[in-house]
């Protein structure tokens, strides 16, 4: 362990190719022992690929991995764990039906023969949990936990395996501001205790707040490695994107127009049959963006589903342009020109194996000009695809390309082109820029603002508070299926929104 340079990890000349792309193009990365090292880059910059190489999920074509001065071969995640490297994935690797402690010991030989000695493991887990303030009930089933708690289980899982190096892949994307604070202080404690942490992100604030040093990746190459204290957000953004980035969007003043959507005392159940919405009421006007802020799982998805006809409400009424639309089907809402940009774009928004051409008519195939009687008009469908691809700058070899081959940004543009081409009255947008890189995010936001300008009413549901603050005219905060209050976006404070997201009702009614 007498490594004079003090590097916990040295990656030298890592090359990893996928068909058609070089994800890592000769990457050198040095991480000091006991630091939080941020890996910053847009989507597709190669951050996750690089970490999967380090964690033994991918075998690189070239390059070597040196841990504490010793070259190692990461042939599998098990090998990585044997070298005390752990990873918390962006999408957690937990078994929802098992309890917390079962998840933690899963895959390890604890106890004798086929039996697990839970008394012993429980002690060890509790002592780790206490040491780092990671409290979570060990007997609870994982599916019953909130996302933030699930993440704690993932961290516990890694600590239980006695890792020295912990890779966190975009850990904040699902957390509330308060949970993020908690996570960051946990990470600090871990580092103070001698752990080394690699923190993958594309959010500049997080880099500034949490890291000691930062390495910026762009298009599979290292652009720069800097001490965080010697840089700032604009400089990092420039390194990451390769050009200047506009942080503020130009927004015209709000013109009050007619009421498009009215929701009165709406109640609905979630998939488990428990109340998800408990008396939600609000109005939404043309030319306005109403942001819905809330921690994941407080009813905002059910709200989006009720509005788009995918979920039945149990009580309450909904009016669209003064016409009652309570419990209309998805097809009826679609025919009433309601656009839906779904949260899980690949699971719901597209049919991955079908072409761009076919995905663009997913909701319109029943109507002229795309079909007459029972037959599809392929000429019109092709023409529509050609138009959409140029209007929305969808980058693809041809409209026959299966959508699954496109990047996240282009997939989202296919969805936007389909949903917005008929000038919808109401747009329900859920996480419209989630997981997109800065360039694509900017484009998507401009598209939404253009719709606002045209007079569409937009309900914007997002867990990215910054996005809600930038785009919205008003902000509705939802907690436990109830509206905590509606704030004017101009004057809203992020701390206040944070408190309301945690269940404090807004004092005094605005608007």
């Amino acid at each position, binding site marked *: 362990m007498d490594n004079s340079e003090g590097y916990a990890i040295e990656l030298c000349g890592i090359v990893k190719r996928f068909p058609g792309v070089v994800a890592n193009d000769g990457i050198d990365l040095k991480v000091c022992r006991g630091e939080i090292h941020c890996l910053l880059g847009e989507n597709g910059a190669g951050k996750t690929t690089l970490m999967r190489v380090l964690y033994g999920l991918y075998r690189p074509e070239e390059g070597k991995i040196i841990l504490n001065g010793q070259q190692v071969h990461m042939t599998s995640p098990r090998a990585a764990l044997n070298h005390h490297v752990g990873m918390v994935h962006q999408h957690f690797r937990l078994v929802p039906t098992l309890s917390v402690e079962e998840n933690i010991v899963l895959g390890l030989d604890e106890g004798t023969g086929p039996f697990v000695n839970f008394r012993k493991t429980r002690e060890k887990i509790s002592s780790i949990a206490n040491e780092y303030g990671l409290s979570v009930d060990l007997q609870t089933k994982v599916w019953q936990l909130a996302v933030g708690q699930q993440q704690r289980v993932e961290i516990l899982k890694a600590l239980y395996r006695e890792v020295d190096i912990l890779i966190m892949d975009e850990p904040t994307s699902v957390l509330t501001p308060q949970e993020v604070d908690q996570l960051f202080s946990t990470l600090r404690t871990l580092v103070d205790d001698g752990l080394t942490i690699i923190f993958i992100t594309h959010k500049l604030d997080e880099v500034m707040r949490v890291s000691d040093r930062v390495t910026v990746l762009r298009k599979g190459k290292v652009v720069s490695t800097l001490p965080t204290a010697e840089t700032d957000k604009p400089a990092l953004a420039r390194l990451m994107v390769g050009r200047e980035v506009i942080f503020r969007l130009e927004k015209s003043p709000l013109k009050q127009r007619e009421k498009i959507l009215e929701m009165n005392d709406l109640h609905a159940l979630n998939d488990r049959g428990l109340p998800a919405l408990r008396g939600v009421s609000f109005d939404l006007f043309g030319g306005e963006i109403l942001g819905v802020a809330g921690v994941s799982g407080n009813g905002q998805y059910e709200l989006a589903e009720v509005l788009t006809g995918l979920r039945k409400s149990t009580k309450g009424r909904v009016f669209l342009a003064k016409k009652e639309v309570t419990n209309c089907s998805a097809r009826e809402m679609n025919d009433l020109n309601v656009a839906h940009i779904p949260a899980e774009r690949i699971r719901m928004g597209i049919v*991955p194996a079908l072409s761009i051409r076919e995905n663009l008519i997913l909701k319109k195939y029943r109507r002229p000009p795309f079909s007459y009687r029972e037959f599809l008009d392929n000429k019109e469908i092709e023409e529509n695809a050609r138009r959409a691809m140029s209007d929305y700058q969808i980058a693809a070899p041809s409209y026959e390309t299966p959508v699954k081959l496109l990047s996240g940004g282009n997939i989202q543009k296919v969805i936007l082109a389909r949903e917005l081409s008929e000038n919808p009255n109401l747009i329900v947008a859920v996480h419209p820029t989630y997981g997109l890189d800065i360039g694509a995010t900017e484009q998507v936001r401009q598209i939404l603002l253009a719709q606002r300008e045209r007079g569409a009413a937009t309900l914007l549901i997002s867990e990215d508070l910054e996005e809600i603050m930038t785009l919205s005219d008003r902000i509705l905060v939802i907690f436990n299926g109830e509206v905590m209050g509606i704030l004017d976006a101009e004057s809203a404070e992020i701390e206040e929104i944070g408190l309301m997201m945690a269940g404090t009702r807004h004092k005094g009614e605005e608007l």
Partner: protein
Amino acid sequence: MKRRVGFKVERRPVASGRVVFFVSLLAIFAALVVAGIFFRIYGVSPIHAYQLILRGSLGSRFGLTETVRRVIPLLLCGVGLTIAFRALFWNIGAEGQLLMGAVAAAGVALFSGLPGPLLLPAMFIGGFIGGATWGLIPAILKVMLGLNDVITTLMMNYIAIYFVEWLIHGPWKGPTARGFAYTDTFPRAAWLPTIYGTRIHWPTLVLGLVLAVVMYIMVTRTRIGFEIRVIGENPDAARFAGISQLKTTLIVMLISGGFAGLAGVGEVAGIHMRLLGPTNISMGYGYTAIIVAWLARRNPLAVIVTSLLFGVIMTGGDVIKVSLGLPFQLINVFNGLILFFLIGSEILLRYKISFLLRR
């Protein structure tokens, strides 16, 4: 210097038509090789056996007609199954649906008392309804109650088999059958015309070919075809787009079950002219058609080719029994091997494996 052979696995973005074709050929070839081991065990040269099978099933007039006769039910069931499989409805029940089509046709032929010219059309309609009903029951159970379609369709086969057994031993047992377990012979007006001197009931063959073309057009050019593909590729997106899973699944199983029912009509009205034991009616066409549809990669037009291939294989069973004195069940081994390698080869459609010579 020592040479090492390495290989590299890469994800294939989309498998082209050519890749699919060659991978399918490879699967069949692999099945031929492994089946060859069994011929060896019996002391027969596999090459010799395959030559005999080819000659026996395609090389003589009798062999050819026997092959075509088997192509008919495979074609009808196979085309229907491509539609079900496209919608991700795993219909393992074509066998039972075929039998129920046969039962319905026999019922019309024996008991309806319809005048001659109306009898055959009524039998086809009845057979379609019989097979479709048997297919719709699991469809409703799946959509309404979430029951597993593989299990329900499979179990419905046994109900159909024992229902036929009961009919021919019980209420429908023919007074003129001299104690044998089958119904009376159908009236002449209920016999399908055959090509002279063969057992090829050509109206059913023509029907199968026409339906293959119609289904191809339906899948590629119509709204319902689009809905079926969307449901099959991504049920969540279908829900999102307002496509009714109930309606689409019912239509799919109406087609799939109905076509198998038509195959049943052909067997009783074109070959046997009566309802008889379930294994005599079908010889497992409904199960073999699963492989036929899968080998066609769920393309209804390609079923015309793959059903011919399996017609050859099934006739080959007779050939090896007569010419080589081997059990014809060897053919089932062969069928199983083809499906095994076919499903195994799917990985080659998703990944490209290239061999490298390293020094």
